[in-house]
């Protein structure tokens, strides 16, 4: 092994290591894989990286990732425009869409309030959310329901509380997604926090 890595190799390892979930060892493995891989594979990856930066934008209404100024969900006349679901990340939209259960529109905050990470409400797409609710009111198309689907973490809950306070005067009703037991999960193996929350969220049958 050479005493010093040649510069392009070192730079690629460093770039990989900066990605979330990738440690220095994995970064090295990926780099050496690409060095040995066929030329086409490496070039396809580089092209995909450039395309994702050049062709993907944020939807100007919901801030989900999109390949046009207004995303396919926001421009779909078949969606229920009276219902809005607020999520932290674009991936959450994907997860909810896979269920086919929610027929309304979305709003992506791009994070949750977290002072540790220097993320205050002004760093999220909250102002845009409130403006959206305002505009809907002015257009006489008040949101009947806004579902707050931020994560059930401390940060997600703080964000939900912050949003609920501000949305309540602007929309019909503000709801929060329920937390409970995972389907297929065994009661015996569920942790106490999940069990308690599931009990708190119980409903009549």
């Amino acid at each position, binding site marked *: 092994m050479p005493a010093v890595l040649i510069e392009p190799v070192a730079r690629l390892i460093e770039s990989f290591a900066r990605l979330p979930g990738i*440690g220095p*060892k994995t970064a090295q493995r990926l780099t050496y894989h690409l060095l040995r891989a066929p030329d086409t594979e490496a070039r396809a990856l580089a092209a995909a990286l450039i395309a994702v930066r050049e062709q993907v934008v944020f939807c100007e209404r919901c801030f989900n990732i999109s390949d046009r100024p207004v995303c396919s969900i926001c421009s779909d006349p078949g969606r229920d425009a009276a219902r809005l679901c607020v999520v932290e990340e674009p991936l959450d939209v994907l997860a909810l869409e896979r269920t086919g259960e929610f027929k309304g529109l979305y709003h992506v905050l791009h994070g949750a*309030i*977290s*002072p*540790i990470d*220097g993320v*205050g*409400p002004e760093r999220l797409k909250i102002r845009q959310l409130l403006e959206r609710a305002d505009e809907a009111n002015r257009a006489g198309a008040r949101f009947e329901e806004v579902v707050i689907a931020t994560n059930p973490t*401390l*940060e997600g*809950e*703080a*964000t939900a*509380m*912050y949003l609920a306070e501000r949305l309540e005067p602007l929309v019909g009703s503000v709801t929060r997604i329920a937390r409970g037991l995972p389907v297929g999960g065994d009661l015996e*193996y569920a*942790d*106490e*926090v999940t069990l*308690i929350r599931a009990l708190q969220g119980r409903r009549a049958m």
Partner: protein
Amino acid sequence: MPGSTRARDRVVAPRSRPPTLLRSLALRNLRGYASLDLTLGPGPQLVWGPNAAGKTTLLEAIVLLALGRSHRTGADAELIRWGTDFLRVEGVVGIAGAEEEEAEGVALDVSVQAGGRKRIQVNGVPRRPAALAEQLRTVLFAPEEMLLVVGPPTLRRTALDQLAGPHTPMYGSHLTTYTRVLSQRNSLLRQIRDGEADRAQLRYWDEPFLASGAAIVAARLRLLELLAEPLAAAHLEIAPAEDPLTLAYGTNAPLLPGESPRDALARRLHETAEKEAWNGTTLVGPHRDDLVFRIGGRDLTTFASRGQQRTAILALKLAELDLLTALDGRPPLLLLDDVFSELDPLRRGHLVRRIAELPQALVTTTVPEDLDPDLRRRAHAWRVIADVEGARIEEGEA
């Protein structure tokens, strides 16, 4: 109280269960150990060898099997032997007295990958860390704890948390929530102090702060109640001539008459609102509370001799043993990490007597001659050897 499921009744009405033994222990790539397989019998197990040979690592392996984490580091990846990319600790816990062939035994298995990913299994089924303690309960007595009375308050808070955990379902979860919400709150307070954030935002963190903080305080207060009797008894046994030893909860949010821990914390948070924004940090809560040792009502930190401190710490350990025995209906596995050299012959005698009553105990020492001759005679001896191959253990006379 038949039919009651309240947690507080668990200690009041213990059911006696057959004592268990750690029957085997297998290590792969844990610190100095590349590979080790031990079969352990009942009674005291004496582990001896030079410093840094791997005696404490052996106890650490058992703590890992009981708690799912080390008592020496929070970074699991640090435990992995240099040059390898995983570690694994396995153990079998079985009923004492049963023949090895007929004893069913419960298999515990903790492994950590280089990235820090941890897997815990009981009888081959993935479980949470709390499931381990249901099978294997340990009490560890280490030389660092000799500073408990006069050392910094963090030592005593850690001891309180570790004592309160087994007696309170969800204690660990409250502690995790509290730690996280406290650092969010402190970050926000710094931003408020520096004019970068608005004070109105604090209230989004108040509910989890009060809920988890009050749960921690309530659990600690209840623990001190439970501990009072066994502690007084143990102290009387060790130092019959001294005034009684008591423990008090030193808090910055003392309860007014009729007040709950949550009310008290909420009131103090309100009272310190100006000051905390000015300081940029949370000034009240269980992270600032302390455990106070008193003899005859006087605070031990201010006047205790070395001997009195050691008596108090030993009494606390013996009380912990009693409390866990009552909780589980059977005694825990006692792990003594080179503490005999820290105690004088009289105090050693009390510990030796207690070891003799336990189904199993692991005792490490660098100097076997320091140990009670009777204990040495009855103990099964293991010698730890460290060489270029790593650490290994041989059976043999101490």
